[in-house]
């Protein structure tokens, strides 16, 4: 039996969405295995290019990657099918949990368990910040931007979107001044 490419794509991304826990980045190697090795929809190099675009775009990396793979294989309809496949499993699982979330949370034992889980969530987020920080902050300028952004969030209560835009704008401005100076020296 030959399956339509849309069905294969939907099932592939549904499987990826269903079996990856712990956020978007965990999905990327599994998407690669399915798309590059099993289905041969893209070469390794093409996949890396897609990943670069996915990381430079806003939103979950796994969602962005699936949209790009879908578009490459079958255009706009392909990206819609791949997106639906990726999002649907977590949507359905969370829908089931959401229906009982408040009830479960009101039990004495569950309340105690969550009181223990919350500090662990703090630890997860802090260690993620440390991990990313030690990789992404390469120069003193990077560190200065990071400190300034943190203070804008904490003390000036800037909207996070404003912080993102300001950091990007600063980088463009500094780069423009640098190349301007270089042109002036010549």
């Amino acid at each position, binding site marked *: 039996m030959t399956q339509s490419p849309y069905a294969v794509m939907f099932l592939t991304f549904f499987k990826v969405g*269903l079996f990856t*826990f*712990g*956020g978007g980045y965990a999905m990327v190697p599994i998407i690669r295995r399915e798309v590059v090795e099993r289905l041969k929809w893209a070469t390794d190099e093409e996949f890396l290019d897609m990943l670069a*675009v*996915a990381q430079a*775009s*806003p*939103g*979950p*990396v796994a969602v962005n990657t699936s*949209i*790009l793979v879908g578009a490459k294989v079958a255009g*706009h309809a392909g*990206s819609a099918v791949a997106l639906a496949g*990726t*999002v649907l*499993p*977590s*949507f359905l*699982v*969370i*829908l089931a*949990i959401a229906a009982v*979330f408040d009830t479960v*949370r009101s039990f004495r034992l569950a309340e*105690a368990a*969550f*009181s*223990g*889980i*919350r*500090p*662990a*969530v*703090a*630890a*997860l*987020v*802090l*260690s993620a*910040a*440390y991990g*990313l*920080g030690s990789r*992404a*902050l390469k120069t003193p300028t990077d560190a200065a*931007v*990071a400190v300034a952004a943190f203070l804008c*969030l904490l003390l000036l209560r800037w*909207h*996070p*979107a404003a*912080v*993102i835009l*300001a*950091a*990007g704008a600063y*980088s*463009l401005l500094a780069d423009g001044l640098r190349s301007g100076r270089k042109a002036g020296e010549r």
Partner: protein
Amino acid sequence: MPIWAELFASFFKIGLFTFGGGYAMIPLIQREIIEAHGWLTMEQFVDMVAIAEITPGPIAVNCATLVGFRLAGFWGSALATLGVVSPSSIVVTLLAAVLGRTRNVPRLETFFRGVRPAVVSMIAYAGYSVARSALTDARSVAIMVTALVLLTRARVHPILLLVLAGVAGALVF
């Protein structure tokens, strides 16, 4: 604005400005969902992050579905989820078209060189906010310190860590 339209608009904004994965989204959700609309308390939100961590799928999608369902049932969750993935679909498609033609866009790279350190701050600030709401007494501080040691020294898997923390919480609280 009807609640479903507000949900869609808020999560569209969250999807549009989330760079660098799930945790970087926490300050945005905090601002939009907790502070601007009062749709959740910080505690309920931290519990949702924990649930998002132990269920499949991207954290942004999980949070949108949960918040949407709490506020407006099935259609609320559908619209919040659609809202959070819509900016991705639009931007990725446009960006892929542009990059397909020119191969590299130096200005975009420069922009992201500046954004990357800010994403680190975004996650650090998220950690600070979550810790402030989670650390209520000496027991919770002890759990956080233990969790940090387990994560960095023993490289315990996040799901296992949350399960262990839940058991510890049930025993000591």
